[in-house]
């Protein structure tokens, strides 16, 4: 394999002008086969790459090219990986955190801000996540429900597919962190495209936002009661929905995955499927030192309790997790627990992290498995 660009640069003496020409030519990061080189230019005492990739040192210290302001570090980047990262710049006592890579125009967005993206060889943004002018647009309807269970008004959105036919009964998908899925995982575009292409059924999708997320999504009885006893009946009255559990799916990522799973546990046989993305399925095998802080206490208690007595709560589970996030280990373990409990599990891992674009990229496989569309019937 050809030597890395940064190593070729370092073969000869480097001055500032040559370093700047190198940066102008390559930008950052430089992806070469299974390696990626991050670059940063500026005066600092120390520059770190923060990435949250399980298995790599975090932070990664960058090296300075002598006599220049160019900093660099190279790491393994297996094909099809996608890594979100930021820089931390240290100057004397000052520490500047959450700095996106100024040499990299590629950003991913989330509720906590944007991050730079390193896309490895072979990773491409799936075309079905991008707006397709031929796809008919579904409608997002604003709804408001006064919840007795949560003791607050819940404002949420309902996606109604473009080919909505009142005479036909539609499956229902309830999405936790609904606003974030719409904003950061392009979920309306994804639904429009997949429905237009006949890859998934004409779903009605409720995008519900949390109140106090870390409380309501951490195995919270009022939240489960809201979803099962208030939201589903409300939607069933207003939209022609399929009646049985097979027509109802709960979905969420991270704590939203726990909210989905714990609701299904509390109301077994009401929901036919779960779609869990990087669910926070943290557990302990002995004692209670889970390392996740107090907010994880109710989650760990709940998951431990389920593991002590696994049971079938839905027919099917689509479960995915990023290989580079710490939650990969509990998710791998729980996939087997779910399957052994008698549920039909499709478990997928992606070379990605705990982020919205990872969850976006898995939507097609998840939704086509849970609610395949008419494509298999169409022979034009």
């Amino acid at each position: 394999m050809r030597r890395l660009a940064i190593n070729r640069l370092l073969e000869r003496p480097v001055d500032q002008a040559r370093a700047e020409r190198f940066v102008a030519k390559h930008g950052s990061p430089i992806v070469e086969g299974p390696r990626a080189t991050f670059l940063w230019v500026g005066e600092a005492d120390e520059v770190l790459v923060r990435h949250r990739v399980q298995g790599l040192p975090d932070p990664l210290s960058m090296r300075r090219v002598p006599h220049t302001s160019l900093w660099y570090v190279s790491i393994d980047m297996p094909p099809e990986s996608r890594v979100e990262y930021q820089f931390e710049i240290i100057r004397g006592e000052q520490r500047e955190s959450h700095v996106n890579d100024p040499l990299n125009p590629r950003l991913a967005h989330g509720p906590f801000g944007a991050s730079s993206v390193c896309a490895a060889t072979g990773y491409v943004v799936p075309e079905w996540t991008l707006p397709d002018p031929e796809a008919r647009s579904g409608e997002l309807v604003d709804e408001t429900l006064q919840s007795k269970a949560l003791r607050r008004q819940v404002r949420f959105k309902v996606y109604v597919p473009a080919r909505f036919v009142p005479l036909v009964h539609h499956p229902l998908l309830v999405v936790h962190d609904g606003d974030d899925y719409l904003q950061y995982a392009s979920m309306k575009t994804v639904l429009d495209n997949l429905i237009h292409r006949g890859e998934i059924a004409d779903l009605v999708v409720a995008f519900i936002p949390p109140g106090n997320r870390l409380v309501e999504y951490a195995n919270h009885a009022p939240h489960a009661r809201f979803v099962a006893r208030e939201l589903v009946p409300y939607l069933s009255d207003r939209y022609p929905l399929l009646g049985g559990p097979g027509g109802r799916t709960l979905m969420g990522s991270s704590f939203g995955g726990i909210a989905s799973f714990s609701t299904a546990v509390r109301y077994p046989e009401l929901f036919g499927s779960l779609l869990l993305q990087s669910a926070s399925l943290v557990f302990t095998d002995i004692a209670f030192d889970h390392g996740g802080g107090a907010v994880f206490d109710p989650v760990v208690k709940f998951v431990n309790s389920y593991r002590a007595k696994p049971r079938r709560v839905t027919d099917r589970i689509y479960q995915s997790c990023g290989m580079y996030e710490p939650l990969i280990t509990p998710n791998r373990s729980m996939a087997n627990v779910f399957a052994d409990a008698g549920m039909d599990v499709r478990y997928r891992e992606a070379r990605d992290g705990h982020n919205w674009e990872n969850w976006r990229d898995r939507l097609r496989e998840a939704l086509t498995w849970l609610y395949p569309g008419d494509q298999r019937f169409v022979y034009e």
Partner: protein
Amino acid sequence: MTTVLLGPQRFRMTAGTVARGLAPEGTVATVTAGWRDREKDDAELDQVLGGRSRNLHLFTRLGHVVRHDRTFATAASAYNRAVDEASELYTLRLQHALDAVYAISRRSVRDDLVDSSLRAGLQSVRDIDAWFLWVLTELEGELRADGGVDTSDVIAQHRAEVAEIIGGASLLAIAGGHVAYLSRCLRLFAVEPPDHLPIIGWSAGAMVLTDLIVLYNDKGPEGVRPSEVWDRGLGRVHGIVAMPHARRRLQLDDTDRNTVLAHRYAPARVVLLDDGGRVVIGDDGELPPDARVITAEGRVSTVAEGAGAVPNGGPIGRGGGG
């Protein structure tokens, strides 16, 4: 009795030439129900057919029936739900049964044991297919009874109009599209073309002319899924499972899977219909020599090249044959 099965017409339109050859004059009754809400967008098709088409508008008629016959609409809704549920159970059973067949074919034990085990496994698959068809027949019976299919004035009126158009036609042309809507519309409006009326059907339109409608897509977004029996067709031609878009939808180089496919539907032949494909079946009901089929060994061949009929219940073999 002449029936012509054609491949997809999107990129190589041959239907017009075939239609002129079969019926140079007279009305061409057309079915575009598979296009669903685009059913009436048939100006281009009419042009291809020489401006002499008369569309049966079966999908539009279906909508009219649903709006004006509440009894039928209610029963149809229950039927659709039941079919979906039965289909889910069928798919579940089928996947496990086929997984067993593929697992057996990979085992390194005595060939005769593998062969008999494969035959038994395939019989299980056929039994599951037969179960699903039986359920469909039962549900169809419920729909006929509960929905008043044979007593509804609304349906009777449409059936009479459809029969009149077909009666005055010199050719029936059935376009592709959504095969489930297509087959259900044909059945609801009792489209039973007389033997002397030549018919051409392409893609889904070819599928509904056979005894058995089989769905398949090895290249879908959810990955390879097993082919599924979906419904009975009009039975105009026998001993054929029509598979249009074969190159786009089947992994034709996977001889193991294709061997199972060929043996599963035997003695019917799996006939591949790609762009430009044409299979003319005359009074003798035999496949023409140039028809492309999947052989007992899972290869793609033509009837002329010696692709003999796939024996039903015969040895399946291993290696090239699973």
